[in-house]
């Protein structure tokens, strides 16, 4: 499995970062990262039988935005985006801009919309379909998309399953051999907020960087599990209890999409 970076390169990159920060700053940024992760999880777990508390969601979303702003200011946001394919700052800005227009895009049509998220290897822009069902997960650039999803929790009639477009499948399929494929898909789905890809055989250097995070929370499988009432059998079942506590809120129409997704996940995970 080819890694995005050779180990030597990665190590050097990490060391230079380390040298630049003193322990306190590292501790602070880790705490901040952990707070960010916690907040994202809290927003994810909003799919319950009862409508989530809006005040709580808004406060958490504001906290996430605050963290993101700070990370952008002190440059650690650069690190996150660079770690995933060398996207330059311009790509990041593109993503922001596009996502801020996302609501306008959505109003143009009822179906799931495509968001340009970020470049991969600086080559081409992958596109990901996000759908209101992804809800709190699709905050590619933090607050704007986040709160759009909060709106979706309240204003949409039903949760629809994620339908990964054919194009994305093809694109990611071509990179399946490498672990980069997993990262791409995950990156697309979770945007610049991705902490770690879900595949177990991922780049260990990246794992080091984000070692504090339990990435299973971000796995598409478990995320979907929290929406769908049928417990999803996969390697990541952390939100299973959430799923099983759900009443009969699932739609049968979701199941075809879910099995499609299963298929993709199997390819990626290689299981």
């Amino acid at each position, binding site marked *: 499995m080819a890694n995005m970076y050779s180990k030597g390169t990665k190590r050097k990159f990490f060391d230079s970062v380390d040298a630049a920060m003193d322990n306190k700053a590292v501790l602070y940024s880790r705490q901040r990262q952990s707070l960010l992760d916690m907040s994202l999880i809290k927003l994810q777990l909003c799919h319950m039988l009862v409508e989530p508390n809006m005040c709580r969601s808004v406060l958490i979303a504001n906290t996430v935005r*605050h963290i993101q702003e700070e990370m952008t200011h002190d440059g650690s946001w650069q690190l996150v985006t660079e770690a995933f394919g060398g996207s330059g700052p311009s790509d990041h800005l593109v993503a922001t801009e596009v996502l801020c227009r996302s609501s306008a895009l959505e109003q143009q049509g009822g179906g799931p919309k495509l968001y340009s998220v970020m470049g991969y290897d600086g080559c081409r822009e992958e596109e990901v379909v996000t759908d209101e069902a992804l809800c709190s997960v699709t905050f590619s650039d933090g607050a704007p998309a986040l709160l759009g999803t909060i709106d979706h929790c309240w204003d949409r009639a039903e949760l629809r399953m994620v339908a990964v477009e054919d194009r994305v499948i093809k694109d990611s399929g071509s990179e399946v051999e490498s672990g980069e494929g997993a990262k791409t898909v995950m990156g697309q789905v979770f945007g610049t907020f991705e902490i770690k890809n879900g595949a177990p055989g991922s780049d260990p250097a990246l794992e080091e960087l984000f070692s504090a995070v339990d990435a299973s929370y971000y796995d598409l499988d478990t995320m979907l599990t929290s929406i769908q009432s049928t417990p999803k059998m996969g390697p990541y079942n952390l939100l299973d209890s959430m799923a099983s506590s759900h009443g009969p809120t699932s739609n049968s129409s979701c199941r075809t999409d879910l099995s499609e997704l299963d298929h993709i996940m199997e390819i990626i995970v290689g299981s």
Partner: protein
Amino acid sequence: MGEDTESSKVNHSFLRDYVTEADVISTVEFNHTGDLLATGDKGGRVVVFQRETVVGHKPKGELEQVGETGESGEYNVYSTFQSHEPDFDYLKSLEIEEKINKIRWLPQQNAAHFLLSTNDKTIKLWKVSERDKQPEGYNLKDEEGRVKDISTVTSLQVPVLRPTDLMVEVRPRRVFSNGHTYHVNSISVNSDGETYLSADDLRINMWHLGITDRSFNIVDIKPANMEELTEVITAAEFHPHHCHLFVYSSSKGSLRLCDMRASALCDKHTKLFEEPEDPGSRSFFSEIVSSVSDVKFSHNGRYLLTRDYLTAKVWDLHMEKGPVETYQVHDYLRTKLCSLYENDCIFDKFECVWNSSDSVIMTGAYNSFFRMFDRETGRGVTLEAWRETSKPRAVLRTRRIYTGGKRRRGDVGVDSLDFTKKILHMAWHPEENIIAIASTNNLYIFQDRVSPDTQGPDLGSNTI
């Protein structure tokens, strides 16, 4: 000055003891005379308690001796009814909880009592009335109410009203539905006696008590683009005397006083009360802890009392730039905010109340503790509402949280606080020093024996 010094609070009675989750009390409210106390719970039920009127009740102002039996005013169950049922929003595939968020009494106009109760979506007006007489001696109906065979009627009698056992009837008189897209957090009856407001996360509506099919929207803070949403409404209340004024609080810690004479839609506030943030103490949790969970006008209408996560603040309506008084409720939690964020306790919404003379404020905390602050002296006490340590007619002891320095016997360490025992809901009798405290599924009623009336309770020399 030790913790054993008795306060003058006397534990009066324990009235509710439940075992199920649905019985968690979610709101407590005295009516305008204090003779009735209503509680709402998560299961959608309302229980109304009535104060006993005891023969030979001592007139107000006279001190009662501690320990005397048969004193005035025990609260007993008067009526119980199911106010709201669980509902289902088919459009969103989401349940609507039957939990009673708020109860507000209407000022009494006749023999019946009226209260408004609301869950997340629907407000209901209930009429609570007594019947202690029953007509008897109908000509056309027999005793059981069956229609008589007319040929058996040989003479006419005049029906008479005969006294029967007291019956309390509760009937829904109005149902105000479909007014709110978001969750209703507050209702407030206007001083005009005809209208009331209901507030949800983004909008405030004004209703007429007699009209259920429409309401006026008076505040709407929903942004055109929901992605720009950063602030929600957390509480709202009408001014106690001026029917055109109301206040609402936000999740960003600001209060807005609105005058309905200015415009039909009060999006533009008349006054904005905001405390500038202290840049030195800014953290990721600053905004969350500044979110106002409750706002109450003082009885005299000159002040506002607000509660945010760590403090209670008194604001002067004439001064917008900051509160005039700030009381630290549990400042020792300031260093624990991350854990409290993790376990969601940081989002707990505590209520706050004034005493009848606006000289004392009270609010809840964790570990079954609640706090009272004397505005004149600025001193606060911590009291505990916990069955194990309180017996009927026992004296409430003040408690202390150990935060450093010399530890005294009975001090509770911050790490041993039970965050599941939260005192969120409470009420203070409108005229006397009687308080009702809800602690999950228990209701405590405490009465001040030494100074039962309008002056503030004697808090002794205990300081926290």
